[in-house]
């Protein structure tokens, strides 16, 4: 299994998808957190819940949480894991080497979770560089402590798990475009709709609820329980993905 997971990481290194998404996510985070600092209180762009003046650790963490947007990117990355192999028809070769398809799916979930966590670290590092740079340049003190550390530690967990969740979506929906749209649609549309219609349910949804809890935006659940809830969703979607992948003929 370790060999299979390593092979998945090798696959990611030898194509441009990972790097492309990483550059895009880093760009978005640098842009948004840069604007956040530059426009400060006057900004209508300020992110909900983010502090406009950095005085406390919580203020700094709220700004660094911008990197949580990477969750959407790693979700898409994960969705292309199996669907992308179907698209480029490399899936036949993959299953020829490893005929037990469930092992392939599990290896992808594990590999992409690791890759997604690394993704989160890089994006977060960019956010930290912007924040520290701005605070230093403007002569402000940097409020650094356990709250900030907790925030820094949890974002990669969220991006990693989102990537694994994406693999599950891609396994259940083998068409790459459909899988990516399903990932987007789920986070941006379905969860917003369900959350809007049934507000009490919002905090239990995979991304608005559990994912937000991990990155600290859903204090009602808390990070640890958020991870547990997200893992439960992850298990379900991966189980569905495995069933679909096992039954499907490779054309």
């Amino acid at each position, binding site marked *: 299994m370790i060999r299979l997971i390593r092979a998945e990481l090798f696959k990611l290194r030898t194509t441009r998808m990972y790097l492309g998404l990483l550059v895009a996510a880093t760009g978005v985070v640098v842009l948004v957190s840069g604007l956040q600092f530059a426009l400060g209180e006057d900004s209508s762009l300020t992110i909900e819940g983010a502090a406009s003046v950095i005085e406390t650790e919580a203020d700094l963490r709220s700004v660094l949480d911008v990197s949580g947007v990477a969750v959407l990117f790693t979700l898409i990355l994960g969705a292309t894991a199996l669907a992308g192999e179907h698209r480029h028809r*490399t899936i*036949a*070769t993959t299953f020829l080497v*490893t005929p*037990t398809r469930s092992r392939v799916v599990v290896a992808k979930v594990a590999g992409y979770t690791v890759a997604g966590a690394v993704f989160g670290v890089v994006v977060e590092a960019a956010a930290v560089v912007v924040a520290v740079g701005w605070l230093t340049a403007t002569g402000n003190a940097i409020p650094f402590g356990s709250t900030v550390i907790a925030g820094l530690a949890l974002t990669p967990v969220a991006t990693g798990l989102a990537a694994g969740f994406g693999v599950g979506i891609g396994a259940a929906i083998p068409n790459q475009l459909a899988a990516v749209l399903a990932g987007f649609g789920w986070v941006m549309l379905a969860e917003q709709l369900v959350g809007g219609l049934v507000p009490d349910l919002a905090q239990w949804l995979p991304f608005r609820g559990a994912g937000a809890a991990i990155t600290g935006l859903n204090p009602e*659940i808390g990070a640890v*329980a958020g991870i*547990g809830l997200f893992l*439960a969703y992850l298990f379900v979607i991966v189980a569905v993905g495995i069933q679909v992948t096992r039954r499907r*003929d490779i054309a």
Partner: protein
Amino acid sequence: MKGARTGVGIVFGAALGLLFGQLLFDGWWIGPMVGVAAGLIIGAITDLGRPAGALGVGLRATTRPDGGEAIVRSRSRSKRDGRAPLDDQHDPLRQPRTKVSMPHPAQWHSRPAERERTVSATASTSILETEPPAVEVEHLTKRYGATLAVDDLSFSIPHGTIAGFLGPNGAGKTTTFRMLVGLAAPTSGTAHVLGEPYSSLSDPIHSVGAMLEVSGHHPARTARNHLLLLARTAGIPGERVNEMLDLVELEEAADRAVGGFSSGMRQRLGLAAALLGDPGLLLLDEPANGLDPKGIRWLRGFLRWLAHENGKTVFVSSHVLAEVAQMVDEVVIINRGRLITQGPTDTVVAHMGRTVMVRSPDAAHVAKLLEGQEVTVTQPDDDRLVVSGIEIEEVGRLAAANNVVLYELREQGLSLEETFLALTEQEGES
């Protein structure tokens, strides 16, 4: 397997327990306690073979999908499976029966293209008595909706043979190959390689090398990385990748993205991938597709070299008979998903019978004389007839009895090409 289930049960139970423990009780420490307790319970339940609803199905799926027999097999081989990659190279059980040595490709053509079966052929005879055929298909059927792609197909390929899988486009060759390597599930019947379903092989890439039309390459990945990826997955050392690139004459293009490759180069990369694990059985689906005449000649020499010099069993499909006619010992001819004939190439041609060629200024009259008999008569020219289903002596007597002048009367054999066309056309008409 029990231990794995318990582990997964604990992890999953702990996750759920953490969640609900955190929510229902005040105090963070209660969560983990409830979690571990829940995990142990779930682990115990799954170990008893009673999966907990949808979760259980998912967990079992991650272990082994093929049911009891397959589990027993995997256990019996677990020692080998557990080895470190480098050890595999020294494991005699993992080594294929023959090893490809690496002469320069130019040598393929310089070697005589002898048909005689050397060591491998003699060996295969004895292997046959104890081992199942290299490829064995029994009552194989595949239905897509209303379309019957493969229809009750049965044939087998002995070890050490180079066999052609022939049929027009759409005959069901690719579907059969896909079922042989587990990429498609048969509607009914069985498709076995080396005596078992492909998915049950403990070490597929070292046992069977497959090059299928359905397998592609990521356009952004280089040829070397494509092979390295397979090698790493299967625990094959990187040097083998370089050897294969050299063997298929792709070493110069090895670090270019496959997206820019010609179809011939892709086919060669596919061959390199199939040979990577040095398997004893090669399944090649239309390997000559997209090759120019030079490429086809290269391929023919290469396959002949693999089979005759390295004792590999090669099962190669084609819809163009000329591509494989000169090199196959056995043929399996199918059309519309059904078997038309199978056997040694010579026997199949002989079975089609010989034809009698008659040249006469009065050919039309001879044709008329033959009417009413159970023969097939074709008239390629005004003065020539080709008759099958009759002895040459009988034609001679018939002509003499009716005072017809004959310029030429001779027996001729059908070429494999003609046999193939005749067989598939007959089937098409029926």
